[in-house]
């Protein structure tokens, strides 16, 4: 797709159709990178082993309680060199800093999301309190998952800041800031502006943006309804616990039915208690879906970066086209389009030959610079599209694999719930028979 404005010869903008040769090439490159990087995870075992509460003073010098997480690393096996067992404590904000650094430094990568800062979509039993041990535990698992994602990413796993995050607890923050990544970050305003004004984004990115919006909407809805369903299921199971209590009391006044009632009551108690495990397992499934809900942000970030790059290219190309046009006008002396210059020359007469020559020279220089800029931006844009799309394909495969597995395990959870139900009610039936 070409830019509309101005004459041809402007740089190629987006490339929506990769030839199959180019596709193959991309895949080969990715594979090479994987081997080159040799996913850090192959060499090093990473775990977020524990969580602890600490107290300290925050930035406004007030007492606060926060949680820290123990990151342990060790070599995968005895043969691995260069890795020594290590451990250090990090808090959530440090993970956030790491992630922001990665986002800025590798804008073409779909960077794995962090687990929730606050418990958002909960059902009633789970407390929305950040200090709640269940929440902290699930966050620990989420943070470990994040580290694994980064460590197994073909590009990210090679990052030094990441490596130091895992292995050095002193001065890590300073090192991150020293990279100057914050300066490289694109302002939100710039990105939004670009999103509105870009003329020819790569169609695939537009599609991807739509997809991530859709996925975000549907996953939010799904997670919300699931939480409500969990709530209701909890209610159903727990009320059966009342049967347990009443059967037990009733059995005390019955002679023939006493035994049957008593044991049936026990099974009702077991039934009511079983829902806790069932829902805990389901929470794990919900967390898997949540990760992909949060991934949509990362997808959109990549799309925005593309729009920005593309927009910048378009601006530079437009500028070049303008300059060329100006040169033409100057050379031929014709005024094609309305301009103030044209008006003034009509009013005040033409310029002198020297003036024209001077102007021409300036323009020539600008044209040369402009062409350089366009070439640069073009390369940048191409590079970006290429590398981003490789990572997006990687992400898509990962997503399909992970979610397929999650869905299957969800179905297996349902089966397990059925088996438990069959067992409890068959037992209860036996007891009722004895009544």
């Amino acid at each position, binding site marked *: 797709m070409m830019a509309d404005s101005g004459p041809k010869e402007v740089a190629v903008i987006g490339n929506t159709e990769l030839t199959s040769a180019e596709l193959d090439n991309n895949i080969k490159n990715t594979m090479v990178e994987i081997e080159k990087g040799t996913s850090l995870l192959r060499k090093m075992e990473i775990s977020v082993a524990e969580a602890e509460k600490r107290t300290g003073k925050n930035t406004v010098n007030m007492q606060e309680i926060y949680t820290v997480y123990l990151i342990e690393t060790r070599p995968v096996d005895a043969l691995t060199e260069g890795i020594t067992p290590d451990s250090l404590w990090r808090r959530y904000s440090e993970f956030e800093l790491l992630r922001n650094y990665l986002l800025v430094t590798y804008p073409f990568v779909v960077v794995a999301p962090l687990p929730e800062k606050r418990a958002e979509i909960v059902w009633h039993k789970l407390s929305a309190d950040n200090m709640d041990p269940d929440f902290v535990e699930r966050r620990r698992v989420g943070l470990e998952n994040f580290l694994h994602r980064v460590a197994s990413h073909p590009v990210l796993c090679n990052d030094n800041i990441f490596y130091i995050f895992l292995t050095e607890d002193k001065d890590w923050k300073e090192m991150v800031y020293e990279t100057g990544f914050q300066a490289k970050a694109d302002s939100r305003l710039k990105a939004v502006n670009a999103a509105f004004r870009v003329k020819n984004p790569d169609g695939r990115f537009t599609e991807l943006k739509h997809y991530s919006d859709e996925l975000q909407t549907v996953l939010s809805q799904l997670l919300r*309804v699931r939480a*409500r369903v969990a709530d*209701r299921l909890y*209610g159903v199971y727990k009320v059966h616990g009342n049967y347990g209590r009443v059967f037990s009391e009733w059995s005390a006044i019955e002679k023939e039915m006493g035994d049957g009632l008593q044991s049936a009551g026990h099974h009702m108690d077991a039934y009511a208690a079983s829902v806790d495990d069932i829902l805990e397992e389901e929470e794990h499934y919900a967390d898997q879906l949540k990760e992909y809900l949060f991934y949509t942000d990362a997808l959109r970030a990549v799309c925005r970066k593309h729009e920005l790059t593309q927009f910048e290219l378009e601006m530079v190309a437009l500028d070049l086209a303008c300059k060329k046009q100006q040169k033409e006008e100057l050379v031929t002396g014709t005024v094609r389009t309305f301009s103030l210059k044209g008006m003034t020359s009509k009013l005040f007469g033409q310029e002198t030959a020297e003036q024209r020559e001077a102007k021409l020279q300036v323009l020539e220089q600008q044209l040369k610079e402009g062409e350089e800029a366009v070439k640069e931006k073009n390369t940048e844009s191409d590079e970006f599209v290429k590398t981003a799309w490789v990572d997006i394909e990687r992400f898509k495969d990962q997503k399909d694999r992970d979610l397929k597995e999650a*869905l299957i395990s969800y179905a297996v959870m349902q089966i397990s719930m059925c088996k438990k139900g069959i067992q409890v009610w068959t037992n209860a*039936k036996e007891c009722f*028979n004895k*009544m």
Partner: protein
Amino acid sequence: MFNASMPTSPGSMVNQCKFEEDEESDSKDIFITVDNPESHVTAIETFITYRVLTKTTRSEFDNSEYEVRRRYQDFLWLKGKLEDTHSTLIVHPLPEKFVVKGMVERFNGDFIETRRKALHKFLNRVADHPILSCSEDFKVFLSAQAWELTTYKKQGPGFLSRMGETVRAVANSVRGVKNRPEEFTAIQEYVEDFSNKIGSLDKVTQRIVKEQKEYLEELKEYGPTYTLWSGSEEELAEQLKGVAGCIERCCKETEEQVGHLSDTLVPVLHEYVLCAETLKAVLRRRDNIQAEFEAKNEALATKKVDRDAESSDLGFVWGSLLGKNPEEARHQRQERLDGEIEELKEEIDKLEDRVEWANNALKGDWGRWQRSMRGDLKSAFLSTAEKNVDYYEKYFIFIHTQITVSL
């Protein structure tokens, strides 16, 4: 004083035999169905009648088949008559006049069906009862045409005599029974406890139904989100639709299960809540009968004391005021008191029989009631447990198939 070990009267002995005989009568000779509710609109009211169809080989019936239409009021009348005539027998409860919470509409389809089933059960329980099924009122209920029934209803103890009964009953219940036999106290304690437990079970079950229905509502929203999601996916579309299908199946099974609970367990528990009230009433009536007997005994004792006492000064003065000879006055007084004592003794004999009969009737019926209670509740809970196993099994098989097919 009433003594539990008094010899039984011939009448009560016969009844006891009957109870033992009719344990498991497979020779059922009367079949009743209640069906076909119809709405009737008149100028003053709208009401529902039910068809009562009877097939019987019993000799006291002229025909072998009867078809009549009866309304709820008629059932109420029958129950009242049965309780009046056999005050210490346990009559199966009728469904309530109105259901306060849940269904307010008297003409709501579900309400009518639930009521029809309960009325059907009521008549069949009466038919199964060895004594109640012989009742003349029962026979008339089953066989008389509408206008015949109206006429028959008008007969029977008048308003005043019924008032008298009520007043007596109230008076006796205020007085209270003094020497209730241990076994009836035990029964009363049991009934108290049972009433509590069955009431709790009723509430718990209704709560379960409510929670299940709310669960179902959420499930109905849940499944479609997977279908919606599948629209955005390529590789995952099959699996997502598979999950949506599973959830849909879960909805279907849950709906069935809730229906079963509402049809099978809820009505039975509710019936026994009403039964508990019936039992309390029966025990009260038994107590009243004994109280009346005790009261008369006390009156007798007082009269005897009166007669055997020396004439009081007051009596002597009274007699002399009337110009009577003190000797004559005393003699007349003695004679009068003797007569009254004889009358009292006769009444007491009758009351004693009555107490005897009431106690035996209750004792016999009590065993019978316990057996049907156990049978009814056992079968209701069994059915519920079976249905729940069925629910999980069906859902299990469905998911299993889905996993192999699309997931």
